[in-house]
């Protein structure tokens, strides 16, 4: 299947470029004077957080479109994006505490930003558990769409949490009303990392979408004696 092959290629290219980002970040990007080498965790933590939030945003949008159009492609996309979002959330929630320990002196603190990002991870898990628990496809798609839409306000809260609450978490340094407050080489590394993580997100989602599609085709073929193939890719 062409979609699956495309997803594999995009993922392979993304992984090679990720190795390049590692080399650039570790060997060719200056060390921040106050935080030391631990600051470089930022180049994987922030893009992973971006991909997790992108994934949830697209799960929500796919949910809205599914409820409006009843097109199974949006349900399939929501499932793919949620699973991939879980992976990026895991990267975010692993690298964040590893940065926090040397900088804050603690692995974790229950402040607004951290707690809300944990909710995001749990929402992804809840979405996937819900899909596993409901067997009837149209009901599963409808319930999942509603749960996915609940993620959109959560994203807004996560973004605004550093402004609305007293929090240890750093303020945005790139996505803010004024210009990014980061020296040139660090900003270039961060933007390249954003690009590579987004490419990996695309590669993973395309493969995961193709996997769902192929499984549905096989089930349809098994259920109707080989007469499947009426779905939309």
């Amino acid at each position, binding site marked *: 299947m062409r979609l*699956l092959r495309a997803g*594999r290629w995009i*993922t392979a290219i993304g*992984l090679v470029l*990720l190795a390049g980002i*590692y080399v650039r*970040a*570790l060997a060719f990007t*200056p*060390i*921040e*004077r*106050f*935080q*030391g*080498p*631990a600051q*470089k*965790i930022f180049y*994987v*933590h922030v893009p*992973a957080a971006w991909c997790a939030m992108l994934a949830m945003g697209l799960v929500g949008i796919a949910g809205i479109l599914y409820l409006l159009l009843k097109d199974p492609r949006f349900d399939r996309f929501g499932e793919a994006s949620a699973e*991939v979002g879980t*992976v990026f959330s*895991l*990267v975010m929630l*692993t*690298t964040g505490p*590893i*940065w926090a*320990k*040397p900088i804050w002196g603690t692995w974790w603190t229950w402040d607004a930003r951290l707690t809300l990002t944990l909710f995001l991870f749990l929402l992804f898990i809840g979405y996937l558990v819900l899909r596993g628990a409901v067997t009837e496809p149209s009901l599963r798609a409808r319930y999942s769409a509603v749960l996915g839409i609940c993620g959109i306000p959560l994203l807004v809260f996560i973004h605004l949490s550093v402004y609305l609450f007293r929090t240890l978490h750093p303020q945005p340094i790139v996505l803010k009303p004024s210009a990014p407050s980061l020296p040139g080489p660090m900003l270039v590394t961060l933007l390249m990392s954003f690009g590579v993580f987004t490419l*990996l997100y695309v590669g*993973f989602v395309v*493969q*995961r979408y*193709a*996997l769902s599609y*192929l*499984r549905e085709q*096989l089930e349809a073929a098994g259920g109707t004696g080989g007469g499947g193939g009426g779905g939309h890719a």
Partner: protein
Amino acid sequence: MPEAGPANAGYMVAAYIAAAVILVSYAVLLYRRTRKL
């Protein structure tokens, strides 16, 4: 040579390894799941 700051490179290495392990494991998992079909 500018001041390098605190010596916490171990945390940086641990975070980079953790991120790589998670992402590569998922890529391999997806590849194996799609190959089975």
